[in-house]
Structure formats: C-alpha cells, structure tokens
C-alpha cells in the first residue's frame, strides 16, 4: 500500500490556539485514486484536507505538528515554498468561487502566474485542455470571453475545477465540492471526479455517504479529531471494523 502512496501523514496534530483539532493522524493516500474523508461536522476532516496544501497557514492561530510528505518530501520543512506546494496540490472549494473575470481568464489565471505558457497559442491549448478535462468545453467554447460568474452553479464549480487543473497539479483537494449544487450538477461532477483520477490524485471531503461510496476507492472516517478507520471504500461501507464507523454510516451518529 505505502509503496504507491503519494501523500503520507504521520502523527499529525493540528491545533487552533489551545484547542486540538486533529490528534495523531496517520494516513496514506494512494496515487491516482480517489480518497474520501468522511465524518460528522467538526470531526477535523476539512482541517486535515487544508493541512495537505497548507491553506491552514492562512489561519494565524493554527499550528501543525507531525509530518505530511508528498512523494517523500516533508511539506512543512522550513525550505518548502508554499507557493510551489500549492501549484502541485490544487484545491476546489465548497462554494464555487470563480474570479469576476472571463471564463478564459479564470482558467488562464494559474498558468499565467506560474509562467506555464510561452505563447498565446500555448495558453489557448492549456485553457482548452483544462475545460475539456473539466467537462465544460462544449458548453462554453463559444463564450470564453463572458464572465465566469454568469454560469450556473454546477458550471461554475466545473470552471473552478478547470482552473485548478490548468496548473497541472499532482493532487486535487476537494472540500465538499457538491454541497452547494443540485443533484443533477452533483451527478455530473461525480462522473468528472471519476475521470480525473486518471490524471490526478484526488482527496475529497464529503458529507454524503452515497457520494463517498460512488466516487472513491479509499475512505477515511474521522471522528472528534481522530482517524477512526481507513481502508478500501467497499470494506469500510460493508464491513467496518470500528463500532463508531458502523454507527456513522448507518446514520446513528453525525
């Protein structure tokens, strides 16, 4: 298992001020698979997700201990540049948050700041590739110059996915990407996630057990800041070892 792990968390503690949000988390996340993090609200799953690309750095009182490595490199080592890290570990947020710019500019934003395109043709290619990968190209190819904020919620979220993968990250973190979407838009995004795992490693936080079961190969169950159980999605849902996991997936706690 750990041979194919791209992300590896060892004894990770996260504190917000005095309050401990995560307690000794050990988790391996395999490459080119979808790993879902489930658990009741406040269990620390989003905190863990945000530790993987150091978005927690933005919270002044947040402190991370232990180690998280990506391809063997400790991302909290002092010489690590968060900018470079976040280019490799992209993030899609709960609420679609396109920039108030054109669809094209939204997708081109990341490649531009990282200097990924040498020419306008290069950039056009990156934008097209990203939008195709995000399953949005057909719907928007004739109106790339229109504002991204004018799209529907589901389209906006796919635009945000396109924007994230345009930087060609290795890992895409998704923080409840469908919680603001209707069931049809959700189904489209779930299909998309399944395809994206061919190119990217995906870690997704979700409140929907069905979603975890549908899209992920691996599942980790968090409860009260602890990682209770992790393993193949199928076995977590059919034969959980821990009683708390069983209670949660049966809908008895949460």
């Amino acid at each position, binding site marked *: 298992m750990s041979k194919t792990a791209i992300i590896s968390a060892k004894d990770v503690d996260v504190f917000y001020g005095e309050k401990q949000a995560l307690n000794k988390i050990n988790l391996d996340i395999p490459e080119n698979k979808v790993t879902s993090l489930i658990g009741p609200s406040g269990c620390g799953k989003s905190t863990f997700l945000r530790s993987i690309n150091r*978005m927690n750095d933005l919270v002044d009182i947040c402190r991370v201990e232990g180690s998280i490595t990506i391809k063997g490199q400790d991302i909290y080592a002092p010489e690590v540049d968060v900018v470079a890290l976040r*280019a490799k570990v*992209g*993030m899609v*947020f709960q609420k679609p948050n*396109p920039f108030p710019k054109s669809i094209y500019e939204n997708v081109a934003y*990341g490649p531009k*700041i990282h200097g990924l395109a040498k020419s306008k043709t290069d950039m056009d290619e990156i934008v097209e590739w990203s939008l195709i990968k995000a399953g949005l190209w057909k719907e928007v190819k004739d109106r790339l110059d229109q504002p991204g904020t004018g799209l529907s919620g589901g389209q906006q979220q796919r635009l945000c996915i396109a924007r994230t993968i345009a930087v060609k990250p290795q890992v895409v973190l998704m923080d409840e990407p469908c919680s603001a979407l209707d069931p049809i838009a959700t189904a489209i995004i779930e299909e998309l996630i399944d395809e994206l795992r061919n190119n990217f490693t995906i870690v997704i936080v979700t409140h929907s057990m069905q979603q975890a079961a549908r899209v992920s190969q691996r599942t980790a169950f968090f409860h009260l800041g602890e990682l209770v159980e992790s393993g193949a999605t199928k076995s977590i849902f059919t034969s959980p070892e821990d009683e708390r996991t069983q209670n949660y997936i049966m809908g008895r706690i949460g």
Partner: protein
Amino acid sequence: MANSDSATIDLVHSQRKKGFELFVMGVLILCSLVAVAVTVGIVLSLLFEAFRFFERIPLTDFLFGTQWSPQTALRADQVAAEGAFGAVPLITGTLLISFIAMCVATPLGLLSAIYLSEYASKRSRNLIKPALEILAGIPTVVYGFFAALTVAPLLRAGGESVGLNVSSESALAAGLVMGIMIIPLISSLSDDVINAVPQAMRDASLGMGATHSETIRKVVLPSAIPGIAGSLLLAASRAIGETMIVVMAAGLAANLTANPLEAVTTITAQIVALLTGDQEFDSAKTLSAFALGLVLFVTTLVLNVVALRIVRKYQEQYD
C-alpha cells in the same frame, strides 16, 4: 348567560391609541420634512440669485471668460464700474489644487488601505486605523493655518534654496495639505471596499499557488476597482468643495496658470471673499457668489451621485 360576555374578544381598536400613533407619525414626518424643505430652499435661492446674476452678466461670459476681477465701484459714477466675471481662472485654480491633493491622497490613501486590510496584524490595525480617523477629525481651519504658516513658508524657503520662485500662497502648499486631509476619506472607504471582496476569492487564488501580492494585484484589487473609483470620486468632490484651507493658503489672485508654485484662487475662496464684509446685496459682485455656488453645487452633486452609484452597485455584486 354571564359567561357569554367574557367569551367575546374585544377586537375594536381604542381611539386613544390610534390617535397617539397618528401623532407620532406626524411628528416624524415633520422632522424629516424640515431637512428636505431647507435643501429645496437653498437650491431655489441659489438658482434664483444666480439667475439674477446672469441677467447682468451673460452665462457664456461667466463660463468662458478668462478675466476675474469682480471690482465694483464705490461710487456709481466711477470708471470700470462693472468688473470682469470670467470664472475660468477660478475653475482651473480649483482643479489644480484638487489635482495636487488627489496626487498626494490617492497613493497614500490607497496603499494604506491595502496595508490595513491585507497585511496589518490586528494590533497594528487597531493602532493605525484610529490614527487615520483622527486625521479626519482635525478641523479644516487647523489644516488651513498649518498650510499657510508651516507648509507654505517651508516650500518658499525650499524653493529659494534651489533658485525657484515660490509664491508665499502657492497652489502646491494648499494642495499638499488638502491631500493629507482627504487621505482618511480614501483609505477608510477603500478599506471597506477591499474587505468586501469575499475571502473565497483570496482562497481560490492562494490555493492555486499565487503569492500574497499576486493575489492582491490580480484578484482583490481588480474586484475592488469600482468601489475604489467611487471612493476617489467622493474624495475629489470633497477636495473641490473644500474652503478653509484654500482661503488661508491659496490666496485670492485669480491667475490663469498651471504652475503649482504660483498663487491661484478657487471657487470657494472667491465666494468667501465676495460675501465677507459689508456688501451691496444686489450688485453683480455679490450675486456672482451665487453663480459660483451653483457651479460648485452642480459639480459636487454630479460627482457624489456617480460615486455613490458606483459604490452601491459594487456592493450589490457580492451580496
């Protein structure tokens, strides 16, 4: 039988309560009408007196004339009894001083707003924000004598030492001090606007590996531009209407010049000059103050309306 009386519920309103409600409403309406009525009265009097002025001096002479010397004769039979009422030097003087003020206040105000909203720790924010607000609370007359007694002599001495002839009442001195005065206006409005940019925008940009300053330059500021433009317009309108500083520091000589080292005068300073002291109330000189007031009123009104509209539209965008 006895029960049936208490079983019915009294639904008839009391006349006394209703009367009181009407009375309260009446008082409230009256209070709000006072302000409206006074405003309407001021506008009407401006219009009316300005109209009387334009009966004597043609509108085109006023708006396009380049000579301003509103001297009226002491005796009716004196020569050159009418004076010249070309407002162009006053308008350019006003614009010159406002321009200098905006050149000072825009970068300082905007950059301190960016620092306060994006970089400052809670502690330094709690220190700097009140300090800026104190600037806003200084009476303009204090700025006025600061400009006239401190800044102007400094500029004059500084100019002399490099061989420049700086007038003791220069546009530069008034403009610089006025710029300082409107910094808090720009910084506090821009600060609000920048804070209104949703955190989700910053997260998205930072999450893609943009640096802090890239995020500010490419996402936060472009999103906030309309609101910032609105705050700049409000500040400009404040600068154009500012009186005390220019009365004390800018002088009364109606020079038509773009040289900031020379003395210029402004619309507001002239209005003060025209109306202070004993004046014959129906002379063209006195009436010209109303015409100038009208020009000022229309300019600042348009600026304010446009600015508020921009700011409001921007705020709705993220609601």
